[in-house]
């Protein structure tokens, strides 16, 4: 039905809070929550899902058959990430630099390269009440998160409302999480730092051609820079969440506000209404 991704330039703005509360507020069936912040997933702390399935995810890295290898150096030449170095009678594979593109194996004239999976993390699936819950957990120390994020997103069901919690920033992992979604909700805070990173994130989603809207969290602190920015850019400001002691208390206990504060549930439902309307308008254009 709709794939909605929650992103932000800056970290710690409240992406997970918005994603989790939105998912819990909707009175619909077929809702999926995907935590794509695989480096430090935390939506499970609030949703407390029962995990039913766990699949290891790997990326294909080259393995060299030194008997067939002629040490021509073609594999190292085509690798964009310096994951291979070829010497007179040895080949060095730096597996942690490999992005798994397969060029080396495909272009090896001696067919001396086969690809073997290097595990990078797991995808876990389960349920939290009526919600379907899926997240990726990247192995500690691992830098290659996009393949794991893509593995999580493969489990999107087209007939569902899918809410995706993205990692912070604007680099490859975020682009992986945001790409192909119907709408991007940008969560920010009303500070110069929040504005700077909102601008970066908005530039990113614009390039990806994804319609966006903004939620300002802790809206009653800071300045009006973000609101002015939204007005100038014609970027819809959809919701403002105040710095609320009750919400903070619930958060600190790992309790989503939507389950305890009906007024907030209504506000998140309104937010979703606005998003679906903007999505419909974007589809029409």
């Amino acid at each position, binding site marked *: 039905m709709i794939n909605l991704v929650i992103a932000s330039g800056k970290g710690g703005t409240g992406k997970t809070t918005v994603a989790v509360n939105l998912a819990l507020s909707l009175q619909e069936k077929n809702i999926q929550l995907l935590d794509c912040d695989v480096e430090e997933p935390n939506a499970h702390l609030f949703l407390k899902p029962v995990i039913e399935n766990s699949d290891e995810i790997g990326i294909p890295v080259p393995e060299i058959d030194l008997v067939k290898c002629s040490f021509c150096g073609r594999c190292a030449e085509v690798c964009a*990430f*310096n*994951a291979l170095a070829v*010497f007179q009678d040895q080949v*060095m594979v730096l597996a942690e*630099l490999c992005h798994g593109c397969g060029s080396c194996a495909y272009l090896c004239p001696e067919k001396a390269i086969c690809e073997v999976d290097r595990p990078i993390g797991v995808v876990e699936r389960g349920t939290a009440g009526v919600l379907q819950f899926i997240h990726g957990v990247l192995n500690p120390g691992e830098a290659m998160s996009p393949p794991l994020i893509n593995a999580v997103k493969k489990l999107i069901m087209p007939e569902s409302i899918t809410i995706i919690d993205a990692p912070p920033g604007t680099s490859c992992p975020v682009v992986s999480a945001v790409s192909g979604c119907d709408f991007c909700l940008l969560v920010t805070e009303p500070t110069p730092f929040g504005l700077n990173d909102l601008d970066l994130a908005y530039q990113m989603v614009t390039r990806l051609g994804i319609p966006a809207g903004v939620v300002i969290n802790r809206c009653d602190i800071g300045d009006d820079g973000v609101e002015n920015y939204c007005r100038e850019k014609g970027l819809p400001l959809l919701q403002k969440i105040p710095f609320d002691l009750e919400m903070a208390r619930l958060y600190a206990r790992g309790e989503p506000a939507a389950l305890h504060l009906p007024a907030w549930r209504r506000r998140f439902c309104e937010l979703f209404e606005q998003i679906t309307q903007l999505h419909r308008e974007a589809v029409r254009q």
Partner: protein
Amino acid sequence: MKLAVCAQGEGLSAGVDQRFGRCQFFVIVDPEKGELISSVRNASAEASGGAGPQAAQLLSGLAVEAVALGNVGPNAATALEAAKIKIYIGVEGTVEMTMQKFKEGKLSTISEATVSSHSGMKGNR
């Protein structure tokens, strides 16, 4: 023999660079004759990752037998071993001064890394 010296520029008068994978030039000399062979730009100096092994591959292709450097990381040390290139530490001053030290046997040879990965990204020190 062919000795590569990690350097900041070209020629015998170039200042040395303490880094291996991210030095700007390899100045290749013949220490026995005290002669300059060539100055080769290190294309992987700006690489996002894997600079050390790429530099080792470059030197291997140039049939270099030994390299004089300040510090070397674990991947670069493994790569130099695979390339059968001997590692000498203790570069100092210019390429010429380092070549002289090598001739006098004042550079010591090592087979293991002196620093951790990515140390060269912090600059020449």
